[in-house]
Structures are given as structure tokens and as C-alpha cells.
């Protein structure tokens, strides 16, 4: 069972890794024309759908970005299937992902479709037939069975429960973010998750959930994660400028300065070298992320366009003060507290690895 769950996690992470460029590209191409429009006082570009000229062009570009955002389920379904069943699984995975969009099954539907497509493909590969039939199996029977399985299982059997779960989940998140206390709680959880493993599965799970709700037109969860993503590396950058140089090894001092760029563009991975030096910083990152996002939620951060990440997110936030305050609270918390509980100098660098060899899990294939 544990092995299967590990395999699912690997497949879902593969799907997410293929989906990242689609969602980021889509969000940028939606956001930039929207911002240009806002500069001229037009918050809603859709009224230029049928006109001509500059604003119509902005509308057209904006629509292309929405295509990207609309493809997210398709891409994730396809590549989860690919991770499990290789090329032969892609078709069924793509179709299953789009099915999730069309039937309002949300990201859970896309994940379920991808897993089903992947496993059915694996099973199909085990079919043994005389060699002369091989090409027929690959060309006709595999696509029939894999797409057929997606159609039957996801399209028919799982559609009612998945649609019910998805609409329930969406309604619940909407309810949460519209109530101040619950919004703060949700923000604290999502911001904290971002700090847990800085780009690892927990971080990507929170980020993924934020983005999946963004596709549904709910932007706040995405904002909550974006604030923590931006603020954690920013915290280490501020720390490296704020404290005396002698508190850092030359390497970490430079990493700290580099985190200014990482924070600006919203790449939490920038903070990893610090966590590697002192694992206890995970607690600081989690508390910092939770504090920052919760502060922003408390001050009523919001957005009515798909939010951009990092500092450019300031431009798409409705309440700029809340967004900046969230980032500052988290970043300053980390900048002040991290050097108090961790030693960033080379002093104790013995080159020894403090991991017990028995704790290393090998998976021999």
C-alpha cells in the first residue's frame, strides 16, 4: 500500500512538473494585458471582444492566456498517465484531463483520470498475443481500452461522486475565504505548507491547490501561497543584509544576496541552502509563511485577475497594502529569528553527514 501511494505521489509530482510552465505562462499572458488595460482604466477587457484596435489586441492576447489556464487539467492528467504508462498512456490521460474540465470534476478528477489511464495502459502492456498481432494491439486495441476505461470509469461511474466532491470543495473554499477567521486559518495553513519543504511535495501540494482554485476563478488561496513563496527567500535575503557579515560563511552570504532575486520572482527553492545548513529552520519557515499569509488574509488581500507570483504580484493584488504587509511580516520574522537559532558560519563544518545510514530507503528495481 505504501509503495502504491509513493508511486501515486511520484506520478502526481511528475504531472505537476509538466504543468508548471503551462500555468505560469497562461497566468502571465492573462495578467500582463489585464494590467496594461487597468493602467488605462479598463478593468474588464471582455468589452473589447468585438471592437478593433489596441484594446481588442489586448483582449486577444488575454484570451490566449486563458487557453493556457484552461489546459491545466488536461496537461496534468496526461502527464500523470505518462509517468505511469509512458507514451501509450498520454492520449487517454489528456482526454481524461479535459473530461475533468468539461464535467467540472476539478483537479481531483484530472488526477483520478491520469491514474486510471496510466494503470490501464500498464495492464494493457501485459497482454500477450502472437507477434503478428502486436501492431494491431498497439495501434487499435491499446487506445481503445485506455480511452475506453477513462470514458467508462471517469466519464460515467466516477463523474457523479467526483463532481459532488469538487463542487463541495469549491463551495467550502469560497465559504472559508469569505469569512475572516476562516480565511486567516486557511491562509496560515497554506502559507505554512509552503515553508515545510521549499519546493518539495508538501510545498507543491499547497501551490497546486492554490492554482487549481485559480482555474475555478477563486484567487485568494493562490494569493496566500504566493505571499509565502515570495516572502521566505526574501527573509533570507533581508537577513544577509541586516546582520553583520561575520555571522555567515562566504558561501551563505552570497546565497542570501541571491535570494533577493529568488524572492522577487517567487522561487522558494532559494531558501534551501539555509535549511540544509540548519534543519531546525523548517520551523522558522513554516511559522514565517503562516504568519505572512495570515497577516495578508487578515488585512483582506484579494485579487480579481489571476494573481502573478513574487513581487510582480503587487500589481495584480486588489489590496496592495495587505499583500506587501504579508510579505514583510514573514520576511522580517525569518530575517530576525533565523540567525538566533542557527549558526550560518563555517565553524562547525566538519564535512560529516549527520544522517543515519539505516534511515536511507533504497528502492531497488
Amino acid at each position, binding site marked *: 500500500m505504501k509503495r502504491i501511494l*509513493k*508511486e501515486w*505521489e*511520484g*506520478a502526481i*509530482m*511528475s504531472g*505537476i*512538473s509538466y504543468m*508548471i*510552465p503551462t500555468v505560469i505562462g497562461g497566468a502571465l499572458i492573462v495578467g500582463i494585458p489585464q494590467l496594461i488595460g487597468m493602467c488605462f482604466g479598463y478593468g474588464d477587457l471582455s468589452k473589447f471582444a468585438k471592437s478593433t484596435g489596441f484594446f481588442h489586441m489586448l483582449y486577444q492576447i488575454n484570451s490566449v492566456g486563458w487557453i493556457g489556464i484552461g489546459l491545466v487539467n488536461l496537461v496534468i492528467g496526461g*502527464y500523470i498517465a*505518462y*509517468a*505511469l504508462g509512458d507514451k501509450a498512456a498520454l492520449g487517454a490521460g489528456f482526454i481524461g484531463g479535459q473530461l475533468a474540465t468539461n464535467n467540472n470534476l476539478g483537479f481531483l478528477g484530472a488526477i483520478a483520470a491520469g491514474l486510471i489511464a496510466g494503470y490501464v495502459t500498464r495492464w494493457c502492456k501485459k497482454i500477450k498475443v502472437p507477434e503478428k498481432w502486436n501492431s494491431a494491439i498497439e495501434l487499435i486495441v491499446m487506445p481503445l481500452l485506455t480511452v475506453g476505461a477513462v470514458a467508462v470509469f471517469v466519464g460515467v461511474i466516477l463523474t457523479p461522486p467526483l463532481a459532488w466532491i469538487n463542487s463541495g470543495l469549491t463551495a467550502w473554499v469560497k465559504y472559508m475565504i469569505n469569512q475572516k477567521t476562516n480565511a486567516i486559518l486557511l491562509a496560515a495553513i497554506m502559507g505554512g505548507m509552503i515553508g515545510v*519543504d*521549499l*519546493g*518539495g*511535495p508538501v510545498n*507543491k501540494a499547497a501551490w497546486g491547490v492554490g492554482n487549481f482554485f485559480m482555474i475555478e476563478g477563486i484567487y485568494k488561496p493562490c494569493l496566500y501561497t504566493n505571499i509565502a513563496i515570495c516572502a521566505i527567500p526574501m527573509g533570507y535575503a533581508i537577513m544577509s543584509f541586516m546582520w553583520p557579515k561575520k555571522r555567515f560563511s562566504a558561501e551563505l552570504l552570497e546565497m542570501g544576496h541571491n535570494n533577493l532575486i529568488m524572492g522577487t520572482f517567487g*522561487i522558494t*527553492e*532559494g531558501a*534551501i541552502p539555509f535549511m*540544509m545548513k540548519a534543519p531546525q529552520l523548517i520551523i522558522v519557515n513554516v511559522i514565517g509563511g503562516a504568519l505572512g499569509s495570515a497577516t495578508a488574509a487578515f488585512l483582506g488581500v484579494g485579487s480579481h485577475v489571476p494573481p502573478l507570483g513574487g513581487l510582480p504580484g503587487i500589481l495584480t493584488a486588489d489590496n496592495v497594502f495587505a499583500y506587501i504587509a504579508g510579505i514583510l511580516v514573514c520576511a522580517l520574522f525569518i530575517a530576525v529569528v533565523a540567525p538566533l537559532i542557527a549558526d550560518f558560519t563555517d565553524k562547525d563544518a566538519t564535512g560529516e*553527514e*549527520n*544522517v543515519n*545510514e539505516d*534511515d*536511507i*530507503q*533504497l*528502492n*531497488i*528495481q
Partner: protein
Amino acid sequence: MNVVGVSACPAGLAHTPMAAKALEKAGKELDWNVKIEQQGMMGPVNAITQTEADKADFVLIASDQKITSMERFEGKPVIRVDINTCIQAPKAVLKKCATAIKKED
């Protein structure tokens, strides 16, 4: 010891090169021949050729994700290890893998 491997993480930005570099550095310290391909955002970096794969004693996959071009390693023992463990304790990982392979033989 001749070791080849592949590292990959969800975003393909930070963990991937960090694990690859950590393992290669640990290899140098052990005086082993270690080459790790990075399958990150930009596709394969520091790619492993078929000749290199053929020479390897074992294949180390620092990821639980989908790795492309696995057919290069056919017939070789393939070991998957969590990418974070590879970053934290690259030397211990390499040593443990080598012991495990010897036991298999």
C-alpha cells in the same frame, strides 16, 4: 565504482542540480566515477551516454518521479532514493547502494 544516475524534482529548479552536484562531489571524495544527469525544467543536462551507462556498476535515480530515457540503463541494477536524502547524505547513499548491489550479486 562507476556510477551513473539521474536527478529530478517537481519544479526542476533547485533540488535537481543540488542533488546531482552533491552526489558527484561525494563521488570525487570516495574516488569513484559518478555522473548524474539532471532532468530539470530545461530537459536533460549533463546527459549520460549509452557508453557511460554500459560501464556503470549501478544506476542511482534521485527522484520518485518519471524519468525519461530509462532504456539506456536496461540490464543494470536501478536504485531509487529520495532526492532530499541524496542532498543531505550523498556519501552515505552511494556507499549504501554499493553494499546493496554487492549483496544482490
